[in-house]
């Protein structure tokens, strides 16, 4: 029994590390994509009073007083900005209406005069309160549990009556980005496979000494900082860069017709393929290394031409490596962020750049989380599919 506890104690550090650095942030992120209590905590009275309101016509009288009380308190506590930014995502007008009203109430110490109701006070501060839209915005934005971020992440909107509809074509942002990410990832995977397969084959069947050198050539870039590699691509690919200079010098391209190789999709493809190539080569190598050269000899002795032998004997045996390499590169490519951010320009941005944008710039963490969850789900689905197709024989040996 003590032995088992001791063994458990050995894995404890890793367990704690994993929980703290991985599970907790991941779960928080997941939760944030559908759960946001901020508005409900700052404006509890209003939301309670709007509970039974069906969204048409004036809200019930208690809501007006509660709104005034809650907003004044929010202005004093300094929380009104956070509420405004959240509710503002539902109805942009509210971004100014809420703070404006809150500060007017707090500073002016406004109360209903004789014969007046809170209704009159609020409308006098901002006529927007007379519109049911304003109240609907608060009610919608105040939900603790919401599908808003997910709808948003796939370019759907919920109309005032609660019905879900697609955004107009020209206002869709995320679906085209998902599509582009998928295309780029596929292209990068294919590029890596085509470039990496012969290299892996060469390494796997070279003499031990040559193999060491070749492996080092693959690993050195692998160990080099990602940032360094990506920025050197900028140097190589830019308009006045090495490659363009070379093309011009050799006369292949006119000086005024230099190729745009960076800050666009081409840059993203080239740099990402380069960064991810070692993963493909190493996956392929690990499988090819275990394919005895005897098989190709046997095929030749049985009368097969080299190409026939490759297609029928070598390729099928290398498939686990192809599968593992493609899966790894594809999954890494889907989530790639730094490289497209640096060399992608605007046309080379991928979905993860959007996640970063919402995390760092717009501070819409809920939407960022929803996008992340969708990506995670997609990748997991892909993995399950791959696992089914290969009968669990993932080629990483």
């Amino acid at each position: 029994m003590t032995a088992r506890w001791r063994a458990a104690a050995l894995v404890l550090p890793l367990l704690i590390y994993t929980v703290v650095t991985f599970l907790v942030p991941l779960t928080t992120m997941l939760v944030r994509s559908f759960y946001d209590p901020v508005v409900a905590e700052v404006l509890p009275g209003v939301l309670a009073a709007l509970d039974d309101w069906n969204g048409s016509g004036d809200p019930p009288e208690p809501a007006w007083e509660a709104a005034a009380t809650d907003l004044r308190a929010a202005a004093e506590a300094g929380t009104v900005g956070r509420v405004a930014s959240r509710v503002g995502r539902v109805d942009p007008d509210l971004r100014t209406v809420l703070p404006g009203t809150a500060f007017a109430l707090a500073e002016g110490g406004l109360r209903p005069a004789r014969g007046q109701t809170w209704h009159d006070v609020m409308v006098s501060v901002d006529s927007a309160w007379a519109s049911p839209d304003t109240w609907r915005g608060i009610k919608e934005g105040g939900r603790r549990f919401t599908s808003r971020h997910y709808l948003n992440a796939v370019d759907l909107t919920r109309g005032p009556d609660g019905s879900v509809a697609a955004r107009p074509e020209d206002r869709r942002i995320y679906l085209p980005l998902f599509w582009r990410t998928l295309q780029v990832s596929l292209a990068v995977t294919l590029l890596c496979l085509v470039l990496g397969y012969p290299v892996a084959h060469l390494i796997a069947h070279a003499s031990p000494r040559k193999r060491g050198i070749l492996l080092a050539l693959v690993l050195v870039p692998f160990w080099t900082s990602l940032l360094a590699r990506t920025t050197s691509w900028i140097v190589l690919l830019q308009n006045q860069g090495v490659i363009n200079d070379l093309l011009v010098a050799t006369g292949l391209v006119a000086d005024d017709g230099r190729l745009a190789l960076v800050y666009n999709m081409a840059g993203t493809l080239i740099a990402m393929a380069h960064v991810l190539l070692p993963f493909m080569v190493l996956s392929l190598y690990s499988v090819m290394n275990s394919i005895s050269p005897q098989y190709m000899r046997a095929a030749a002795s049985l009368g097969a031409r080299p190409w026939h032998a490759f297609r029928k004997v070598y390729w099928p045996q290398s498939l686990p490596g192809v599968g593992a390499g493609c899966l790894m590169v594809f999954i890494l490519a889907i989530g790639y962020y730094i490289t497209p951010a640096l060399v992608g320009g605007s046309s080379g941005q991928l979905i993860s750049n959007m996640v970063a944008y919402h995390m760092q710039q717009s501070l819409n963490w809920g939407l960022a989380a929803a996008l992340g969850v969708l990506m995670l789900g997609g990748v997991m689905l892909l993995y399950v599919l791959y696992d089914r197709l290969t009968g669990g024989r993932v080629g990483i040996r």
Partner: protein
Amino acid sequence: MTALKPDLKSGPTTPHVCFEAVSKSYDGKTLVVHSLDLEVARGEFLTLLGPSGSGKTTILMLLAGFEVPSAGVIRVAGKPVQDLPPRKRGIGMVFQNYALFPHMTVRENLEFPLEARSVAAQAREERVARAMDLVRLSGLAGRRPAQLSGGQQQRVAIARALVFEPELVLMDEPLGALDRSLREEMQYEIRSIQRRLGVTMVYVTHDQREAMVMSDRIAVLRGGRIEQIAGPEGLYEEPERVFVANFIGENNRLDAEVTSVEKHLCEVVTGGETIRAIKVADCEVGDTVTLSMRPERVAVNPRDGLYSNETDAIVEDVVFLGGQLRVRMTACGSDQIVAKIPNMLGHGGLLVGDTVRIGWAVADCRALAAEPAHS
């Protein structure tokens, strides 16, 4: 699998396979095969026998075309094959660990060489069925190699090497991975298939018993050279080298000094005893030779005057072998003199420590060129 047509162009006397002064070095310095001359007749079962590292596999690879000779010419049916890639040599090959394609079923494995030769689908099916029949594997066509026992994999490998009807078949220690009883069964089976099809076989093994059972002729290899090439009986009865005498069967060896030489015979002295022997080595008086005698030719307590070589011996050890007794004795200055005698009632009355008389015929005692003891 039909009997093979004789090759009319090359004529009946041309050897099927012919190595002419073939040498091979992998690193450009050490020769793994030394100026090898070897002929294999059509329909012959030739075995390359030798310890590990003696160059057997290398010779097969040279013949199959996977390695290029550093010097010399290899002919198949009279024609040099240097410039033919392996796939054009039409040689059936069974590899050391079978090299069955793991991702293909047995049928697909057998179809592979036919497909590569663009044999029509129907003929393909027929030939595969016949090959499966030949090695008695019918019913396993749908299995993959991993689902077969070692013996079955072996049969598939043989069937695959034969299915395209090659005239020349090479096998590299094909039975090495099998257990003993299966190995013996397969030895007879491979031999009988080879006879039935009339193919020429070059077979590699390090097991002398296997070589004796299967071969028409055996080439004993050491360090990339042929020590002796002869039929199983010839190798056993008339070894020309100590290495061969030791490698094939059990052997008594005695180092001795030559005291007189006749035309085919010589007289030597060892441990104070004078012994007459067949002169195999090219020796003169004063030279050291190694005597070689088979244990079953050494008689214990023979009738007086039956053998011209006789001496006293002390029994060191008696081992019961079933039909025979293996008696180890000290004689002629060696304590490793072994006699194998028929197992008679009461162990022939032999007890450890007894002094006995032993004798052997001149014809059963061969004086070979002396070799360092370790090899």
